[in-house]
């Protein structure tokens, strides 16, 4: 009964998600659906709530209203006997560990070597044995092209290299979903390509990804769907190759005329 249902449910599903900081309503009823194995790009002007939406999806922030599901499960709650039970910290941490997140400013652990950055989550959160974690970390570092740097500290790497390590760190948790929050915005233009290449490979391997980005080329080439978030609501969405070429709403038209 349940198996076919899980296979067809979207990886992420949002219905009327609201989030306020004090009096400021940042998300004002967001609807979104991300199918398994697909790449979804999220674009929108600064302050429109893109980061907030990603942070709600992995429960770094609690949404105030609406329904948010990841992998069929309500984020932060458990539905039992017609009631919603708030999950305890341990369950939330376990849930979160299967959702990878990549930040604009990399946020690598500064006091750990590249290798340790990739093993620490495996060992301390997933309980993988140290040797196995190192083997897996080396595989992932090879995948992002950084085996030679495993003994270096993050401060000794370029921005592009740091971001690739950050991707490897997230992948080490065996995520079912990867969230990218403007992963190339802090990079020098010549370093953007190496990070996007890693992300394209990841997309090809079938990873479900939500990418907040200003790289319209990446969106057009890789994304299966695109959402335009403006003032806390999804203003327009669809196939990026259509939406980006023929934007219907005036807001998206004016946004695109500024970014492109």
């Amino acid at each position, binding site marked *: 009964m349940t198996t076919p249902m899980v296979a067809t449910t979207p990886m992420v599903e949002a219905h009327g998600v609201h989030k306020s900081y004090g009096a400021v309503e940042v998300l004002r009823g967001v609807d979104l659906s991300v199918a398994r194995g697909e790449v979804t790009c999220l674009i929108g002007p600064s302050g429109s709530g893109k980061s907030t939406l990603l942070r709600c999806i*992995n429960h*770094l922030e609690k949404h105030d209203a609406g329904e948010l599901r990841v992998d069929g499960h309500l984020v932060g709650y458990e539905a039992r006997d017609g009631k919603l039970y708030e999950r305890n*910290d*341990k369950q939330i*941490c*376990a849930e*979160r*560990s*299967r*959702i*990878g*997140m990549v*930040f604009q*400013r990399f*946020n*690598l*652990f*500064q*006091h*750990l*070597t590249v290798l340790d950055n990739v093993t*620490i*989550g495996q060992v*301390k*959160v*997933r309980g993988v044995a140290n040797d196995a974690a190192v083997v897996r970390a080396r595989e992932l570092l090879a995948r992002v092209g950084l085996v030679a740097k495993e003994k270096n*500290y*993050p*401060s*000794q790497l370029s921005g592009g290299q740091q971001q690739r390590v*950050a991707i490897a*760190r*997230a992948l080490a*948790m065996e995520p079912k979903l990867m969230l990218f929050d403007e992963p190339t915005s802090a990079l020098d233009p010549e370093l953007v390509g190496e990070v996007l290449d890693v992300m394209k490979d990841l997309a090809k391997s079938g990873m479900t990804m939500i990418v907040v980005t200003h790289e319209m080329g990446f969106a057009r080439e890789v994304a299966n769907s695109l959402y335009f978030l403006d003032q806390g609501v999804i203003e327009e969405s669809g196939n990026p190759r259509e939406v980006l070429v023929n934007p219907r709403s005036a807001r998206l038209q004016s946004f695109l005329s500024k970014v492109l």
Partner: protein
Amino acid sequence: MMTNGDDAVEVVPVRHVGRYVAGFVVAVALAMLVHTLFSKVSTGQVSCHTSAGARHCHPVTNWRFGWNVVFHYFTSREILSGLLVTLELTAIAMAIGISLGLLIAIMRLSHNRLVSATAWVYTWFFRGTPVYVQLLFWFNIAALYQTVTFGLPFLNVTFAHINLVAFFTPFNTAVVGLGLNEAAYMSEIARSGLISVDEGQIEAATSIGMTRSQTLRLVILPQAMRVIIPPTGNEIISMLKTTSLAIAVSLVELLGAATNIYSANYEIMPLLIVASLWYLIVTTVLSTGQFYVERHYAKGALRTPPPTPIQRLRNDVRGIAAKFTSGRSTARASS
């Protein structure tokens, strides 16, 4: 343009005349200081001896600073056992100060208002009163409460029973007084370290599924250490010297031992020098240790770690040697 060819332009370094003058003035002042330290004064007595059939008499002179007395007492049993008490007291009081201080700093950052307020009041109280008064307070507390009983209030449940009169020996009083006071200062140092860690680090740790306590232990604390260590080194050195206040609770530590000796033989200056020299020696050892601990926790924060004193010395020697073998060789040959 400088070239390395035959027609290389000679580079003439700037002469820093001001530096030479300042160096000369300081050198003369240092020489005068050393002279007074080792000058001799007449004691008013005359000593005579015979050699080769002749009788020689000359006034007895003594070191103004009594270096022979210093030397005599420097490794005497009383001084060494006082030194040991000072070291033990410093170590235990700092251990209490650091661990309790860290706990209070973490409490200050708690989301629970009562917990963070308690931590704030602790720091406010122990920083706000002189440590000397606190020592006297603990010394006299046994007059107020003969025993304390740990248990649940009003419920007749007891866990432990302490006889305060027996507990507050001079050493224990000093440990408690100095340790609790230190915790207040250490908590501020620890707190500044904890909040210095970038919020992105906490987000990253949370996003890979670490719990709050894992994030604290594995990510925040190790990075906070870089900020916490240098002022903690200062605190240890300062504690070493503050232990001399334990005279107030009649504990015989290093200064107390020196005081005991000079109150019997009136050699006040030499014995104060003995105590000071020991304080200087221990401080020097501690500072060296601090350097290496800092270097350890700076890992990852700096692209290249600073050289150790030995590496620096080696580099300096190499640099000077290089100077002499290259540029100066012709000058030396001609002189």
